[in-house]
């Protein structure tokens, strides 16, 4: 994560005010999260204060400030998933992995995030691991599913 890396990422942008969110998104997709170093670099590039930038970034649920696991698990807790027992799925995952939503396992394999809606409501409850969406999940199948990613 050298300085040159940031220069590459930032070279896509002109540095206009409207670029703040696209830049944060790009940095997060490159590095996995927004580190204090990212905030420093972007703040210099856009010529806005680190505080202001962090204020914008922390407003949006998409941005994370801790290092993600190798595989990211998103548990959908939209209405349809809630009605179909999404909360149970989330808690089962938390217990299986021994972490809470928003945390990463000590071995860095998995992290769990709660999301509002993945838009696959008719197949509820759903979870997303990396880019794969798993539909109609049951808590008894979770262990099996996770094994595929280890």
């Amino acid at each position: 994560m050298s300085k040159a890396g940031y220069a590459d990422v930032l070279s896509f942008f002109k540095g206009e005010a409207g670029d703040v969110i696209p830049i944060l998104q790009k940095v997060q997709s490159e590095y996995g999260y927004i580190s204090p170093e990212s905030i420093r670099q972007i703040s210099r590039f856009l010529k806005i204060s680190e505080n202001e930038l962090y204020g914008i970034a922390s407003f949006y649920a998409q941005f994370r400030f801790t290092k993600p696991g190798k595989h990211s698990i998103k548990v959908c807790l939209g209405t349809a998933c809630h009605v179909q027992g999404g909360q149970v799925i989330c808690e089962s995952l938390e217990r299986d992995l021994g972490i809470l939503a928003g945390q990463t396992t000590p071995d860095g394999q998995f992290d769990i995030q709660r999301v509002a809606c993945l838009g696959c409501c008719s197949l509820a409850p759903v979870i997303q691991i990396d880019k794969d969406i798993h539909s109609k999940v049951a808590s008894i199948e979770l262990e099996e599913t996770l094994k595929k990613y280890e």
Partner: protein
Amino acid sequence: MSKYLQLRERAQAKWNGLKSSSVPVIYLGTASCGRAAGALDVMEAIKQTLEKHHLEARIITVGCIGPCHLEPIMDIALPGRARVSYGNVTPQKVRTILESYLIKGDPVRKLVLGQLKNGRGEPVEDIPDFFSYPMLQSQIRVVLRNCGVIDPEDIDHYLANDGYLGLMTAFENGPEWVLGEIREAGIRGRGGAGFPTAKKWEICRNQPGKDKYIICNADEGDPGAFMNRSLIEGDPHAVLEGLTIAGFTLGANHGYIYIRAEYPLAVECLRNAIDQMHRYGFLGRNIMGSDFNFEIKIKEGAGAFVCGEETALIASIEGRRGMPRARPPYPATHGLFGKPTVINNTETLGTLPNIVCNGGEWYRQFGTSGNPGTKTFSLVGKVKRTGLIEVPLGMTLRQIIFDVGGGTTKPFKAVQTGGPSGGCLSSEFLDSSVDYESLRSIGSIMGSGGLIVMDEDACVVDVARYFLKFTQKESCGKCVPCRVGTSHLTTMLDRISSGNATLEDLNDLEELSQTVIKGSLCGLGQTAPNPVLTTIRYFRNEYLEHIEQKYCRAGICRGMYEYHIDEKLCTGCMICLKACSSDAISGSRRQPHTIDLAKCIQCRACYLACKFDAIKVTPLHYLGEASLDGNGRGSQVLGEEVPA
């Protein structure tokens, strides 16, 4: 115009070529919902089967046709024949179907859903029309007409089906004429508030100055709704054409699409479609030889529900925290970068090409006089046939839930319209008509079109608490009634659902709700208490049960129950044992299991996993007084009163 006709002719030749193809054509639904159901594995299986038998076929990927519970859906058209659809396709079924239909010519009728007769191919005998499937029968597909039928990644497919004809008609007749047709059509904003689209446009159009903006709002943050995602993934060009028509009518040269980053596939679809528009000359300078210039930019949202609100959305595009501001001035006069801006919902824009092509009067034939047209809904929850539907406004909730959706397996309890801003309606409202005014009069709203159906397994207090937790988390924090009010409402609901509330809490809940509604700055706060107020109004008994009896009839609220296993019903299958992640269940195969109450955290995982109704949920505190609903509910063990 001549350039357009040329493009269209070429596109039609390509489209018709598909129908007169000398090899079979296989269509596979690969929108997000199809993929979630395993469409990509199916695709792999198709390719392998074709290779194994040295068969030739073309594979076309399409969007979602609507009945998501049947995904993945695969259609096969033999040369010169109609498209035959198969649902819930698995790799195993693919092999059976392909080997039988492509080699022996037998379409495996027991696996067939129906055939699409609207094509040119000759119908296959003894197979019903897919559109006579109960879920599709009473639908009218205006905005969804191409979804699941054409390849969304191919602009030629769209062009061949009257694509961009609306834009050309608009160019020919001028902006005034377009505005007139939209006014005549009477279409109202499909984002939920129902403001007449023509009126919004007039205000912006009459503003002086050259720089104007048009924004497509695809920030579908409402949990439980996916209409915009499905439309964009199934027919992105319809939305983009609508946006361009809007730009032309308003005199705006810059268009934005503000879309949720949680929809990566939809974003990809839009990027690809915009590239194609550039290549064909539907974007850029002097579009199709007219003097109209237009560019479209995609802005990805970053996960904030409040950004569905116009002024917050604008703040977010400008690179600030997505916080709303007081209106007026409205965005139509002071919007993006301080310029006149119109923000329309994705569905509104997707409908425009149709209205412009066929005229406002044509559109009025659907729906009712004050609520013309059709509306898409995502029908989800405990309904049998889930998916995306499009019906004329003015249909009743009963028709939508029971005729289109097939009803519920366990007895129907409630339906939530309008997402977190809407209301929870009980069965007495099943016959009310679905239009902006009727829904508002019973304390709910139309919203963007999420319909979440709940059966007896849902607890209304829990549902209200869920929505309030959501709005509380999504409140931007700018105004006090919303920031602090939703937080207090949540605390009160927490008390009720944990059995620690008094009747005073119930009164406070209603009073504070009114304060939040009246005092909040934007729509998020003004509508946040709707789920609370409607559940109290229509399900007061259940609130009283929670408070006075410490009893939750659905068995959802924790701390009011004990879980144990009925030895007579338990088959010793060990499923609950595997489901339990707190090691509270013990037992060996074929022997009845037991739950260790000290370890049980009442997560319901075993209750949901058990296939024999052997997990019983017994109320701890319920005193057995039959005063509430007269039938002595609750003195029984919960699991027994649930009909199969």
